[in-house]
């Protein structure tokens, strides 16, 4: 039917009212390290689940790049097996998988082979032509870190990442550098090809629903922010505890340790979101500006007094006898790599001055727990006769990230009876009890966000460098004092010095 005057549409009105993310533009995702563990365990299952749930656009394509001898069919078969094994949605829908697999191809090449990038460029052109991806590209670096700079350099030289038709983005896995200098060098190398707005540094922790829930908990509930400051908060404890050891990651862990593996990224992310001011909105720069302000406000760490490191020896965890770190696979028998770190941080700003943040992370601790605990000050005076303020345990608000995501608040209540006696009770809330639905994997959220151009949940250059600055300071402080490792048995909450660190201030670690 002919229209009298055809209006110009500026937005997709069919999308109105759909509480679903926008659909990304058709794009090709080039995965470097396509035959590796991360691609099989996380990336391909995430892409399959995005396709299954209608989040991927028509024409979406994947080009796997690796130096493993595989035909295209073998690569697709390998990916299908990975999806069957690791996808959260089971059983795998053959038709949906086939629809995704139709857009999967493979280019075999060493990452430093200039000629290989020519073949990759030709493959991208084919995909653009045949599948309508219009030059939109995500380069996903799922490789060992030593290849990051080489791949970026070759992409630049081959002109594959050049601005032109379509958008180009690069995703970089952690670790992003291993100290401030290397992180800065890597940033510089990437910036020769990509602008900061094109760079997506993944810390999968931020893709977790429960980490995002901390922001919702703080900024969507009017009752917490007024007391979220030095006036009412005595101190904050942030724990990322693992009961497992290093599994088969000895080779990696020997070069990393707890400081680089967890403190520099996950713990710093949790400190930032627990301490940040409310952003004006939830866009990438507004949120990251506030997080960086927190990192900038961290008082220079007095390593001798405010940091404790540890390494586990043999012990018992969960009723199982486990070896010490030095007995683990691919670990040097005299290794001085730390598997535990506890740090006392001071944040020099109006909100948190004189309110310490105690952080700890470790392997082979008694239980697995990630949480932010806000311990409030006691009331200044109790009007109840014969009940001393000291008898009360303080109010503690705990935001649990894993396991059993949720929040709990410890409050005082009267014990029934004629005498005024108080007892502390816990009010627990499990997200699972109200939203007992399966959450998407962090990678699904992050891959989709990257394709949509939303970098809110990715680390920015200054954020990464600030965190490395803290790590460097701690490393420098440790350099002159060799540790006496192992100094805690597996299955305990770290070395005694960690207890002393907090007890000096008249406080105690929580048992998560």
């Amino acid at each position: 039917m002919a229209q009298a005057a055809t209006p110009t549409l500026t937005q997709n009105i069919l999308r109105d009212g759909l509480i679903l993310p926008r659909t990304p533009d058709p794009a090709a995702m080039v995965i470097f390290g396509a035959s590796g563990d991360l691609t099989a365990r996380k990336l391909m299952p995430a892409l399959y689940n995005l396709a299954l749930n209608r989040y991927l656009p028509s024409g979406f394509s994947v080009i796997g790049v690796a130096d493993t001898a595989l035909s295209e069919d073998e690569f697709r078969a390998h990916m299908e097996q990975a999806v069957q094994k690791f996808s959260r949605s089971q059983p795998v829908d053959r038709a949906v998988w086939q629809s995704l697999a139709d857009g999967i191809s493979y280019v075999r090449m060493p990452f430093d082979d200039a000629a290989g990038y020519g073949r990759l460029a030709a493959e991208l052109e084919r995909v653009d032509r045949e599948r309508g991806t219009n030059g939109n590209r995500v380069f996903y670096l799922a490789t060992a870190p030593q290849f990051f700079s080489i791949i970026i350099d070759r992409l630049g030289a081959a002109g594959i990442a050049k601005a032109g038709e379509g958008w180009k983005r690069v995703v970089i896995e952690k670790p992003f550098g291993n100290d401030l200098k290397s992180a800065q060098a890597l940033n510089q190398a990437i910036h020769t090809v990509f602008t900061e707005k094109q760079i997506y540094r993944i810390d999968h922790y931020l893709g977790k629903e429960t980490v995002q829930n901390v922001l919702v908990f703080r900024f969507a509930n009017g009752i917490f922010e007024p007391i979220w400051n030095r006036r009412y908060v005595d101190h904050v404890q942030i724990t990322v505890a693992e009961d497992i050891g290093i599994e088969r990651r000895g080779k990696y862990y020997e070069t990393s340790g707890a400081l680089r593996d967890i403190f520099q990224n996950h713990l710093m992310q949790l400190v930032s979101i627990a301490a940040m001011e409310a952003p004006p909105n939830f866009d990438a720069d507004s949120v990251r500006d506030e997080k960086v302000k927190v990192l900038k406000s961290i008082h220079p760490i007095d390593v001798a007094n405010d940091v404790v490191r540890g390494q586990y020896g043999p012990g018992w965890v969960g009723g199982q006898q486990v070896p010490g770190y030095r007995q683990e696979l691919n670990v040097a028998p005299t290794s001085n790599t730390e598997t535990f770190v506890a740090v006392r941080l001071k944040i020099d700003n109006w909100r948190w001055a004189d309110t310490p943040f105690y952080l700890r992370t470790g392997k082979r601790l008694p239980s697995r727990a990630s949480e932010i605990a806000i311990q409030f000050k006691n009331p200044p005076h109790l009007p109840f006769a014969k009940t001393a303020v000291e008898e009360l345990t303080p109010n503690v608000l705990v935001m649990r990230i894993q396991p059993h995501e949720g929040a709990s608040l410890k409050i005082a209540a009267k014990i029934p009876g004629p005498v005024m006696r108080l007892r502390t009770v816990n009010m627990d809330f499990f997200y699972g009890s109200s939203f007992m639905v399966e959450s998407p994997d962090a990678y699904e959220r992050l891959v989709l966000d990257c394709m949509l151009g939303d970098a809110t949940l990715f680390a920015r250059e200054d954020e990464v460098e600030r965190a490395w600055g803290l790590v460097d300071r701690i490393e420098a402080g440790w350099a002159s004092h060799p540790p006496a490792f192992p100094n805690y048995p597996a299955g305990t909450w770290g070395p005694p010095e960690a207890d002393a660190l907090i007890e000096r201030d008249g406080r105690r670690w929580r048992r998560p």
Partner: protein
Amino acid sequence: MSQDHTELSARTFVDVHDIQEELDQVRWGLHQDGEGSEAAQHAAAEARASVCNLIAVVSNEPELGEVIHVLDRLSVTNPSRTLILLAQHTREADKLEAEVSAQERTESGHRVSTERVILHAHGEPARHLASLATPLLIPDLPVILWWPGRPQFDNPLFDDLCELADRLVVDTDEGFDDADLARLLEVARRTKAQASIGDLNWARLIAWRHVAAQFFDMPGMLARLAHIHGVSIFHGSDGQTAQARLLGGWIRSRMASVGIDVPLEFRPEDSLEHGVHRFLIYTGGNEGPARFSMSRLRGGRLSTQIRLGEQELAERTVRLESRATEELLGIELTLPGHDQLFEEALDAALR
């Protein structure tokens, strides 16, 4: 998911205060003397997550069983206080019975408990069940009224409960004809309407709407949408047309919002099973003719295709969820306020 389900208590009452008392008992895990064991109180404290009050109205015993089954499963994702009203306007003597029970579940390590009250009324009390329901609701939580089957629009109980509710949920796939759809629209548009309207059939159409919208998210395709000149909807010929009408009403109302009239073609086919099977959008204009098609495949899938002139673009296959009633209800429970789009789609479907 691992699941463990325990029926904590089930007793019958006729006095609203007795019912309230028993609800408190089962909710907080207290014993008869008002003192609870520490363990029981702790267990109760752990289980206190309620997201709404849910009132369901049924008209007979078999329907009651089905509704209990749905609500039991719904409680896993939406722990709520549930009131089930069985109103029988028979010539029997006035009679009112109430059964209070609590269920405790453990799902994947989380403990959830919910309370359920079944109010069974005959005769005059059946007309005044809203007055009994009101004091039994958990304060400050939204009240969802689920009316399975075709609502009794002329029953005063329907109006009373709509006044009490924040949201009325129906399923227009349960035999709603055009007159019923019109009555539903009338309810939604009452000047004093407190309750927003939800429709499980509308929730079933999310995937179709999502995929249709995605066509025009693609670069260059939005301009084609402005040149839409027709829509065809293929559906089963079992006489149940509400789903197809709603889908057509949706695209017609969306396009009407920018001043474009879309002719709708409904194609009932004997070979097709119940519901919408194929949805085709035709566009023209300077960009040339295009056809955007979505087809339901066996096994809960949707296949999408774009044809630009004679050129077929990349096909894709995605999931078309076949959601159980409790899942559809769960979607409805998370939607805030009036669903303007649904009301406009309903209106356009009837024009």
